[in-house]
């Protein structure tokens, strides 16, 4: 049989379905905004350009970007090995608890020591939280989707317990702990509006994940495992170990996102600090189709939409949910473009 050379995928070719998906999604939502009697063009303008009009908007976007990109990696790293981690939320919460615990127990340490310890507390706690489904998968072959989702619910109870326990802040009306030591606060890169150093950590993680999955031997084994676990096993890769490792790494990244929320944003543990980062992280990972190179860009785009959505609600009174619909539709159309291309 003769094989013809396939046309090489260029960057332009890859981008076309994305741009098309965004345009179609915006158009679809525009119809609803118009039907509800709002000014469509103004809404578009607010959604897309709030992030770039003022320094405040841009910094808001970067702050949104940090947890989103980390949550997306907590999903895509195990995905490279063919495993689905839906437990980023629980890993974030438990990571936040770990970070807060370190910060509350050692309040007098200088920043040079306390910041790394707080972050490490979050990473270790999150990794342990990821190790539980990993171990259940390794030992008893229990589906990781199930266990990671269920552990999210356990983490809700756990944060409630910690935030209403002995560390409770009696002055707060919402389950909240007392603040961590001052030395545990992430330094600010920009004072007004405040931008904390978490952005640097997030970018470092992005670079590390990229090098890990594409350059390292362990990353090679991760990719091989995801590509065909049976063949990887036949050629000497300990596939089950790779499964566990991938979820533990994801747990560490998820835990780090929780630690940054504590040390950079809240400076204490607050119930509900996870927002809807998990769902957005999944959407980012899926729109990027698991490609770790693409994750930061997609995460930034979603952060822009999120910031635009709040602004739209504030200034135009259009409900933020409109933007959730845009995000969901972008994902659907990107996935659909695969099906269309195959035909």
């Amino acid at each position: 049989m003769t094989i013809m050379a396939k046309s090489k995928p260029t960057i332009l070719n890859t981008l076309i379905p994305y741009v098309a998906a965004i345009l179609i999604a915006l158009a679809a939502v525009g119809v609803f905004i118009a039907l509800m009697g709002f000014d469509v063009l103004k809404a578009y303008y607010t959604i897309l350009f709030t992030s770039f009009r003022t320094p405040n908007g841009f910094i808001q976007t970067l702050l949104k970007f940090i947890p989103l990109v980390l949550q997306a990696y907590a999903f895509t790293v195990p995905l490279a090995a063919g495993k689905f981690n839906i437990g980023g939320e629980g890993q974030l919460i438990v990571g936040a608890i770990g970070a807060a615990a370190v910060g509350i127990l050692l309040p007098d340490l200088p920043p040079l020591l306390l910041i790394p310890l707080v972050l490490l507390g979050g990473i270790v706690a999150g990794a342990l939280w990821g190790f539980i489904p990993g171990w259940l998968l390794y030992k008893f072959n229990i589906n990781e989707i199930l266990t990671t989702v269920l552990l999210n619910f356990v983490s809700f109870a756990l944060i409630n317990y910690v935030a209403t326990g002995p560390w409770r802040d009696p002055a707060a009306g919402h389950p909240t702990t007392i603040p961590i030591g001052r030395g545990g606060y992430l330094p600010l890169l920009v004072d007004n509006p405040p931008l904390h150093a978490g952005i640097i950590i997030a970018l470092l993680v992005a670079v590390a994940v990229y090098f890990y999955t594409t350059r390292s031997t362990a990353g090679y084994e991760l990719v091989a495992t995801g590509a065909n676990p049976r063949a990887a096993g036949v050629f000497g890769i300990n596939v089950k170990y790779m499964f566990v490792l991938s979820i533990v790494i994801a747990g560490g990244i998820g835990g780090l996102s929780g630690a940054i929320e504590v040390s950079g944003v809240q400076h204490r543990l607050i119930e509900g600090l996870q927002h809807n980062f998990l769902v957005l992280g999944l959407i980012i990972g899926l729109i990027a189709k698991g490609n770790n190179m693409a994750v930061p860009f997609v995460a930034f785009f979603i952060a822009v939409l999120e910031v635009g959505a709040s602004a739209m609600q504030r200034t135009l009174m259009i409900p933020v949910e409109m933007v959730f619909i845009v995000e969901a539709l972008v994902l659907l159309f990107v996935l659909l473009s695969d099906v269309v291309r195959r035909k």
Partner: protein
Amino acid sequence: MADTPILVMKGIRKTFDKSVALDDVSFELNAREIHGLLGGNGAGKTTLMNILYGLYKKDSGEISLHEKKINISSPRDALHKHIGMVHQHFLQITSFTVLENIVLGTEIHNKYSMDLSVEATKIQALQNRFNLAVDLNISIGDLPMGTRQKVEILKALYRGAEILILDEPTTNLTPQEVDDLFKSLRVMVDQDLSIVFITHKLREVLSVCDRISVLRNGRNVVTLKRDEANEEAFVRGMVGDEMDIQNSVIFSRGKSGQIGAEHIRAEVCLHLDQVQLASQGSVPRLKDISFKLRHGEILGIAGVAGNGQRDLAEVILGITLPTGGKVELDAKDILAMPTNQRLESGIAYIPEDRLLDGFLPKASVAHNLILGFHRKAPYSSGGFINWNTVHRTAAELIKTYNIKTSGPSDVGGNLSGGNIQRVLIARAFSKPANLLVAHNPTRGLDIPSMDFVYSRILEEKKKGLATLLISEDLDELLLLCDRIAVLYRGELVGTLDRSKFEKYEIGRMMSGYRAEE
């Protein structure tokens, strides 16, 4: 009348995506003839016949039957026009009886009581007419492959086939069963059937066919009567002009008898002693397997597929752990060694199921070419992969092994079956090894590529490579091996030296008779 064709296919063209599988191919079938359709893998034989059987739609060309133009839309339609096909892999329900398998999917006379006596009588008539004796009331899972094949032929005949297409019918048959099949085919053409016999084995067409058509790269090469042609013409037709037949392993080695015995060294490379592999059921997967394989030796494992070949390979690689016995590599016990260390200590492996066990479809060709060696220099150092080295080596391997791909970064899933097999072979030979475990290494390759693999194995043999060649292709084993052992239901029933190679003796052992020591 005898020479007027009953079936004519003219100018058939078929493309899959962008690759051309058939290009302006013509084919004629006379009444009462056995017409051999010969060609290497990827020549388009099966594609052509799948079009005739309605499984594929042709892009262009025409088919006429009894001088009337016809259009075949589905296998049902083909059977309606009395064209039947027996595929290489049977679709049978193993827990059903022979009778139930034959009538499955046809109109049944006593639909509600499932009393099949009317059908049984009809089938018996067919059996008598075509001399195809099979007990109708046995479940099909208990029968040997040769008999299951007869059932498959009966299935086609029961559905009214007058033109019968057999796709590689001798795969998995012992030599005795092959002889039997050929006798049946003769009876069938005497009883007014016409048969298309698809094969890549020259000897088979020469011994049973009346006329032979050769295809290569999706084109007609030549059609000749059996008695008009010599072997040479067919060989040329199959392999093309580029191949050096005189120096090829396939066409020259058999003639000079013992080649390579002098390379066998005294040191034992692989030693299996009383290896057992129990299964959950009552029949063990491997039982008392003992053999020694020396450096520079090629030991063949013959047997009908599914008699424990895969388990044997996986026990040696450490993918499956035996429940008893010893496995030694170069006089070192390797039972406790995990697979990756065994690969690092010099075992190369070509697995049988290339898609399931040997290939990463979602990763790049370069990823695939280093699988198993990815932790070792020069591919990796200090925990990082040296992608520059990997890509350079991959590009060289792609060239040497004639892998058709756009380059090392091409996604594995874009490769065709034969090219995937080339990747597996390139990988196995890319590093110096002490032991090669090769399971059906040439499946899906065309003849020049097969020959290349054989010559590589023989070259490495000279350098002291021990090869365990597990194959269902007996001709391949007879060609290359110094010794052949036969595996039957997880047991080695005997081992023959090259001087005592005899096809029928091996065939008897493949059906379970022990060799007389």
